[in-house]
C-alpha cells in the first residue's frame, strides 16, 4: 500500500496535462478508486444520482446511449464519438504509464531488502568479539583489588593511632592550655576545653598519668571558677558579660538556684539604674525604644539561662520591673500633648508594643504584654480625646476668624465665600485628623490587628468619639449662640448666626453623610455596638440650623423693633408739626431690611411668595377701619348693651387672623424676611397703641406707613400680611388720636414719592 500511494504521489507530481482542472479530475478519480474520499464528497453525492454522468459511480451506459441518441443530431453524435475515442485513448496511455512506474519501484525495493540482509550478518560477528574482551577486563580488575587489600587495612589502623595520639597530646597539654586561658581571661575557651576532656579523664582516672592530669585540671578549673564568681560578684560588667559568666558557671555545675537569685539581683540593680535614668530624661521622646530594649534584653538573657524551676521567680521579677517601666511609659505618653505629628507617637508605640511581643515569646505566661497592649489602647483613646479637643479649638478659632472677617468690612461681602471657606477649613482639618488617627490602624503597625483596634477603636473611638462628637459639638455650640446671645446684649453678630445656620443646614443635607461615609470607608468600621445613625445627626443639625435661623430672625427683628420703638416712644406725638417728609427712621428701616435681604440672599434661596397684585405699592389705607363705627354709635353706658361692632370685629380678628409673630421660619430668604418684618411691624403696632396722637401725629404715621408699604411688600411671602399690619397701625393711631382728621391719600403719595 505504501508503494502504491507513493506511485499515486508520483502520478500527481507528473501532470498528465497542463490543465489544472483536468489534473484535479484525474486525482479525484484515483482517490475514488482507492476509497480516499476525504475531499469532494459532497460533490460526489450530488453527481452520484445522475446515471448519465460518465464519470459518476452510477453511470448506466444504456441510459446514456439512449439519451444521446434521443437528444443529439447525427453530427453531434459523430463529434461526441470522436471525443469519446480521444478520451479513451488518453486514459489508456495514462494507465500504462502508471503500471510501468509502479513496477519499477517494486524492483528497487526488493534490491534494498537484499542488501540489508548482508549487512546484518557482518555486525553479529563484531558483537561476539566485544563480549570476549569485556570478560578479560573483569578478570584483571578482580586480581588488582585482591592485591591492594592488606595495605588499605594498615593505613586505616595508622590513622586511628594518629588520632588517638592527638587526643592524648591534647590531654597532656590541657593544664598548660587552661593556665594560659586563665591568664588571658578566655574563660569560655577554657571551660569548653575542659568540658571536652572531662569525660575522658573521668574514665581513665585509674591510670596514674591521667589522674595527674585530671588533678591538675581540677585545680585550674577551681581557680577559674573562683575568678568567675569574683567577676560575677563585682557586677560592674555589662549585661552580656554577666550572662556569659552565668552560663559558664552553670556549665561548671554551680548550684543553679543560687546563681539565679544572684543574677536576678544583679539584673535588677542594673535595670533600676536604667529606669532611674529614664525617669531623669523623661523629656526625651525617643526613650520608648531604649527602655523597652533594656527590659527585653534582660528578660531574654534571663530566660535563656534559667531553667524551669526559676520560672516563677523570673515572672515575679519581670512583672515588678515591667510595672515600673509601664508607669514611666504612661507618664511619658501623657506628656505627649501636642497633636502635631501623630506618626511619631504611633511609631514609638509600635516599637514599644513590638518589644513587648518579643517578651511574650520568651515568657509565654507573662501578663506583661497584655498590660502593654492596654497602655497602647489607653494612649490611643487619649489621643482621640486630644484630637477632639484640638478640633473643637480649631472650630472656635475659625469662628473667631469668621467673626473678624464679618466685622472688618462694613458690607457683608461674600457671606457665601466665607461659608465655603469655613466649611472647607473644617472639613480639611477633620480629614487630616482622620488621616493622623488612621495611622493607628496602618497595616505595618503591630498592634493594629488587635481586636480593639479592629473593632472598638474604629467604631466607638474614631466614629463616635471623634467624628460624631465633633458634629454634635458643632450643633451644640451653634445652639449655644442662640441661648447666650439673647439675654446678654446680643454679643453674636447676626451675620454669624445666619452663616452658622447655613453651615448646619449644609451639614444636614450633605456633609454629615459624606464625613461618616468617609470615616466608615477609611476605617472599615464594623458596627458591633450600636452607633449614632446618620439620620439622628442630620436631625440634630437641622434642628440647630432651624434654631439659629429663628434666632437670626429674632435678633434682626429686634434690632429694627428697637429702632421703631425708640422712635415712637421718644416723640411727642401730640405737638408735632404737619408731616412734610417720611421720618428718617422709616428710611433706615427700609435700608436695613434691604441690606438684610442682600445678606440672606447670599446664603439662602429665594423661596416662594404669593402672587402680587398689580398695584402692590399703591394701596390706600382704610384709616377708619376701626374708628369709624365708634363715632356712629352714640355713647351709651349700658354695660349690658349689645356689644358694639368694634369689639365684635376685634373678637373676630382674635380668632380668624392671628399672626404668630415669633414663629419658626423656613430655610429661604422670603420666609426669613417675612419673619423679620412681622416682628418689626408688630412692635410698631404695640408702641402706637400706648401713645396719644395729635392730628399731625396721625398724619405722620399715615405717611410712614405708606412709605413702608411702598418698600416692604417685595420682601415678604404674602403682601397681605404687610397690608394687614400697616392697616392695624394706622387704625390704632387713628383710634388713639385726639383729633382724627386723616391726610389726603394723594398728599401722602406725593410726600412718599419725594423721598
Amino acid at each position, binding site marked *: 500500500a505504501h508503494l502504491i500511494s507513493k506511485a499515486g504521489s508520483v502520478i500527481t507530481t507528473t501532470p498528465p496535462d497542463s490543465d489544472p482542472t483536468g489534473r484535479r479530475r484525474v486525482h479525484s478519480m484515483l482517490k475514488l478508486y482507492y476509497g480516499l474520499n476525504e475531499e469532494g464528497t459532497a460533490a460526489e453525492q450530488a453527481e452520484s444520482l445522475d446515471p448519465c454522468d460518465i464519470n459518476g459511480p452510477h453511470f448506466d451506459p444504456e441510459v446514456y446511449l439512449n439519451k444521446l441518441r434521443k437528444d443529439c443530431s447525427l453530427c453531434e453524435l459523430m463529434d461526441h464519438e470522436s471525443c469519446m475515442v480521444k478520451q479513451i485513448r488518453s486514459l489508456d496511455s495514462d494507465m500504462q504509464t502508471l503500471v510501468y512506474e509502479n513496477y519499477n519501484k517494486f524492483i528497487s525495493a526488493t534490491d534494498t531488502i537484499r542488501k540489508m540482509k548482508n549487512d546484518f550478518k557482518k555486525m553479529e560477528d563484531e558483537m561476539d568479539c566485544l563480549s570476549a574482551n569485556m570478560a578479560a577486563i573483569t578478570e584483571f580488575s578482580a586480581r588488582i583489588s585482591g592485591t591492594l587489600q592488606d595495605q588499605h587495612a594498615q593505613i586505616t589502623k595508622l590513622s586511628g593511632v594518629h588520632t588517638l595520639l592527638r587526643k592524648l597530646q591534647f590531654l597532656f597539654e590541657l593544664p598548660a592550655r587552661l593556665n594560659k586561658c586563665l591568664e588571658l581571661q578566655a574563660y569560655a575557651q577554657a571551660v569548653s576545653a575542659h568540658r571536652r576532656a572531662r569525660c575522658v579523664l573521668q574514665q581513665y582516672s585509674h591510670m596514674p598519668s591521667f589522674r595527674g592530669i585530671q588533678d591538675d585540671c581540677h585545680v585550674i578549673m577551681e581557680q577559674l571558677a573562683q575568678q568567675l564568681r569574683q567577676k560575677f560578684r563585682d557586677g560592674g560588667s555589662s549585661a552580656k558579660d554577666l550572662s556569659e559568666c552565668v552560663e559558664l558557671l552553670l556549665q561548671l555545675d554551680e548550684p543553679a538556684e543560687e546563681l539565679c537569685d544572684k543574677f536576678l539581683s544583679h539584673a535588677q540593680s542594673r535595670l533600676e539604674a536604667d529606669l532611674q535614668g529614664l525617669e531623669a530624661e523623661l523629656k526625651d521622646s525617643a526613650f520608648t525604644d531604649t527602655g523597652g530594649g533594656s527590659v527585653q534584653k534582660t528578660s531574654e538573657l534571663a530566660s535563656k539561662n534559667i531553667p524551669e524551676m526559676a520560672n516563677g521567680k523570673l515572672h515575679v521579677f519581670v512583672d515588678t520591673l515591667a510595672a515600673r517601666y509601664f508607669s514611666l511609659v504612661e507618664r511619658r505618653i501623657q506628656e505627649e500633648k501636642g497633636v502635631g505629628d501623630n506618626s511619631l507617637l504611633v511609631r514609638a508605640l509600635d516599637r514599644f508594643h513590638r518589644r513587648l511581643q518579643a517578651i511574650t515569646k520568651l515568657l509565654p505566661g507573662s501578663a506583661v504584654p497584655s498590660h502593654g497592649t492596654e497602655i497602647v489602647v489607653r494612649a490611643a483613646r487619649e489621643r482621640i480625646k486630644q484630637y477632639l479637643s484640638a478640633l473643637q479649638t480649631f472650630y472656635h478659632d475659625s469662628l473667631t476668624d469668621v467673626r473678624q472677617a464679618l466685622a472688618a468690612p462694613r458690607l457683608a461681602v461674600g457671606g457665601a465665600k466665607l461659608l465655603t471657606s469655613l466649611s472647607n477649613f473644617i472639613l480639611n482639618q477633620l480629614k487630616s485628623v482622620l488621616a493622623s488617627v488612621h495611622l493607628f490602624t496602618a497595616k505595618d503597625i503591630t498592634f493594629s490587628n488587635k481586636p480593639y483596634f479592629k473593632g472598638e477603636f474604629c467604631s466607638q473611638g474614631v466614629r463616635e468619639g471623634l467624628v460624631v462628637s465633633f458634629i454634635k459639638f458643632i450643633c451644640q455650640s451653634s445652639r449655644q449662640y442662640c441661648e447666650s446671645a439673647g439675654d446678654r446684649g446680643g454679643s453674636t453678630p447676626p451675620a454669624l448666626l445666619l452663616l452658622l445656620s447655613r453651615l448646619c443646614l449644609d451639614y444636614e443635607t450633605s456633609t454629615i453623610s459624606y464625613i461618616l461615609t468617609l470615616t466608615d470607608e477609611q476605617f472599615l468600621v464594623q458596627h458591633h455596638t450600636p452607633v449614632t445613625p446618620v439620620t439622628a445627626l442630620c436631625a440634630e443639625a437641622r434642628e440647630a440650623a432651624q434654631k439659629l435661623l429663628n434666632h437670626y430672625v429674632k435678633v434682626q427683628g*429686634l434690632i429694627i423693633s428697637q429702632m421703631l420703638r425708640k422712635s415712637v416712644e421718644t416723640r411727642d406725638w401730640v405737638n408735632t408739626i404737619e408731616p412734610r417728609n417720611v421720618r428718617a427712621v422709616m428710611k433706615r428701616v427700609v435700608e436695613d431690611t434691604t441690606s438684610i435681604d442682600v445678606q440672606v440672599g447670599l446664603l439662602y434661596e429665594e423661596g416662594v411668595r404669593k402672587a402680587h397684585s398689580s398695584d402692590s405699592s399703591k394701596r390706600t389705607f382704610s384709616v377708619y377701619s376701626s374708628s369709624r363705627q365708634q363715632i356712629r354709635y352714640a355713647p351709651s353706658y349700658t354695660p349690658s348693651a349689645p356689644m358694639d361692632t368694634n369689639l365684635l370685629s376685634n373678637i373676630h380678628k382674635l380668632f380668624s387672623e392671628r399672626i404668630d409673630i415669633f414663629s419658626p421660619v423656613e430655610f429661604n430668604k422670603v420666609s426669613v424676611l417675612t419673619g423679620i418684618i412681622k416682628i418689626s411691624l408688630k412692635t410698631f403696632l404695640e408702641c402706637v397703641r400706648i401713645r396719644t396722637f395729635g392730628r399731625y401725629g396721625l398724619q405722620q404715621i399715615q405717611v410712614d406707613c405708606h412709605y413702608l408699604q411702598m418698600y416692604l411688600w417685595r420682601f415678604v411671602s404674602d403682601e397681605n400680611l404687610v397690608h394687614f399690619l400697616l392697616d392695624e397701625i394706622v387704625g390704632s393711631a387713628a383710634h388713639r388720636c385726639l383729633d382724627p382728621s386723616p391726610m389726603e391719600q394723594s398728599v401722602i403719595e406725593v410726600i412718599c414719592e419725594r423721598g
Partner: protein
Amino acid sequence: MDDDAPVIYGLEFQARALTAQTAETDAIRFLVGTQSLKFDNQIHIIDFDDENNMINKSVLLHDAGEIWHISGSPADKAVLTTCYSKTSENRVLTCAAVWRMPPEWESGSHESPDDSSNNPQTLELLCHLDNTAHGSVACVLWEPLGDGKRVISLAENHVLLWDLQESSTKATISSTATLEGKGQLKFTAGKWSPHHNSTQLVTANDTAIRGWDLRSMSQIYCIENAHGQLVRDLDFNPNKQYYLASCGDDCKVKFWDVRHINEPVKCLEEHSHWVWSVRYNHSHDQLLLTGSSDSRVILSNMVSISSEPFGHLVDDDDLSDNEENQQEDKYTSLSLMYLRLVQYNSIHFHHFSSAQFS
C-alpha cells in the same frame, strides 16, 4: 367645676387697667378702668358669683381721663387709686389720684341695672398724688397687707412714698428716691413686696430689675439685663419671700431668687410675643398666669419652684370659675380664677381674684 362655659363681659371702651379688689374678701370682685380719648371713662366693678356662674356689674364714672393703671386699697374696699392721662394745652401727662366709690353704688345697681346705666355715679375724689414736679406716673402701689395709709407712685425715674392722712384726703410725700444714670430712665413697672414687713420694693426700668429698701430708700440689688428687651411686669411669690417672677418683650417669663441674681431660677418661653403681665395665684403659688400680645393667656403650673414642691395636688373643687374668661389656655384641666382683658388683639392685664377660695 360645674360648667366650662366662659363668662363674657363686654366693655364698650378699650381697657388696659384691671385689678382684683384686695380688700374685698367675701366676693370675687374686679375693677376695670377704661381708656377712651373722646368720651368719659368708666370704672367697671365686676362681681363674679361662682355658684351661679354669673356676673354682677356696676359702672362708676371716672371723668378725669383715660385710665392706665388702677389699684384698690388693701384696707378699705371703697378706696382705689388710678393713674390717668390728662390732656391739657396739647400736653399729655399721666397723673394719679385716690378715689372713693360713692356709697350707694352697690344697692343701686342691684335694684335696677337699667337705671344705673343711664345715671352712672361719679367717683368721689379724695386727693391728687401731685406729680407735676416728677412727670408721668407709671403706677401706684398700695402697701400690701397695710392699713391703707401708704402708697408708692412710680413717676418717670422717681420713687415717691406717700402718706395718706385725714382718711385719705391729704397726701404728703414722706420720702423719695431717684434712679440716676445715663439717658432717660423711666420706670415701667413695680411691685411692693408683701414680705419683710413690707419694707421692700422692686421696680423695672428698661431691661433691669431693681430692688429697693424703703427704710433707707436705697437700692439693694439690681438685675441688669434681666430680660433681653423691656421688662413689662413683675410679681412676688406670695409664699416664698425671695422669689420673684418677671416678664418682658423678649417673650419670656423668668423666675428669680433675689439672693442669686446672676441666673434666673427658671425661664419659660411659651409666648410668641411680648408678655405684658404676670401674676401669681394668691394661695396656690404654683399657679402663674401670664398674658401676652400674642392674644394668649397661659396658666402655668410651676410645682417645682412653688412653696409646695412635692406636688400637693390642687383640688379642682377649690377653684371656681371666673368671669370674662375666654378659655383658650393650655391647662383646661384646671379651672382657674382670673380675669383678663382683651384689648385690640392683645391681652394686657389679668388678675387672680384676691377672694379666698372656699
